[in-house]
């Protein structure tokens, strides 16, 4: 079968009713498929070729804004970006200062703890020395 031939059912459907049989017959004759004007396929293909570069370009253009949005972020959002950056820097600075103060205080506390322990050791030694000397002299404390 030639695919370019109009499709016509060799066994057309039964008429709607006997009343319409003549009309249906005439309609089938009147509605035979007709050829489009010559060169139709060429014109469609020309339009396809014409549209293809545009669709590629528009595809590129569609991709560009996404890239541009990322690359040009600071430029187009200056009003939002600068205050946010300043606030973030202030926050980081404040947090850094707080951390530095805490570390300093911790270091001082550790140092004070060491000094206190050293003082206790010195005192203990002095008391022990005194107790030994008194013991030698025959005086004893807490040994009943």
């Amino acid at each position: 079968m030639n695919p370019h031939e109009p499709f016509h059912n060799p066994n057309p459907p039964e008429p709607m009713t006997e009343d319409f049989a003549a009309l249906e017959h005439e309609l089938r004759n009147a509605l035979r498929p007709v050829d489009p004007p010559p060169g139709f396929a060429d014109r469609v293909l020309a339009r396809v070729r014409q549209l293809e570069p545009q669709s590629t370009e528009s595809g590129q253009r569609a991709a560009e804004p996404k890239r541009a949005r990322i690359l040009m972020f600071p430029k187009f959002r200056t009003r939002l970006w600068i205050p946010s950056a300043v606030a973030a820097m202030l926050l980081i600075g404040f947090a850094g200062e707080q951390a530095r103060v805490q570390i300093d205080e911790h270091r001082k506390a550790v140092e004070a703890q060491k000094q206190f322990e050293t003082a206790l050791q010195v005192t203990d030694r002095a008391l022990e020395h005194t107790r030994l000397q008194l013991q030698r002299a025959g005086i004893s404390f807490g040994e009943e």
Partner: protein
Amino acid sequence: MAIPEPQFRNLIETHQRMVFSLALRILGDYATAEEVAQDVFLELHRSGERLESEDHIRFWLRRTAKHRAIDAIRRKSNRPEADADEWMEQDYAAPPSNSLNVSTEARLESLLRTLPDGLRAAIILRYQEDMLPDEIAAVLGQSQASVKSQLHRGLTLLRRKAAVTMKEYFREPA
């Protein structure tokens, strides 16, 4: 190109008669019918990768051609529904019969163009494409009962008009 050019050309050449004829019968205007038919094939080209079989392509083309042709009619605001009801009345006035030199088929075709969009589409698919009511229902997105009703209403209306303008060929049943 979504479909290789030789394959797409073959598709156009296979289906151009059907698509162009559908658009022409629905629109009644060669220039607009060609424009619509071209648009349908461009749309096919864009969605060609999703169309799997020959039957699927034929179905898709029929449905798209019908939709695009109706869209074109609406754009032109050329809606023949306005006078449909007056023809459904029994006591219509006979228009002047001035088309004696035109062939029966051409006159019938021009009468067909006066039918409302829905009735005309159903009649064209039935008698141009030899489609059954269930196939027409699938293309038009309607129920089979609705298509049968449209066909009957369309034929009744057409015969009524033909009985007036082509009374030498068609008569209203008594």
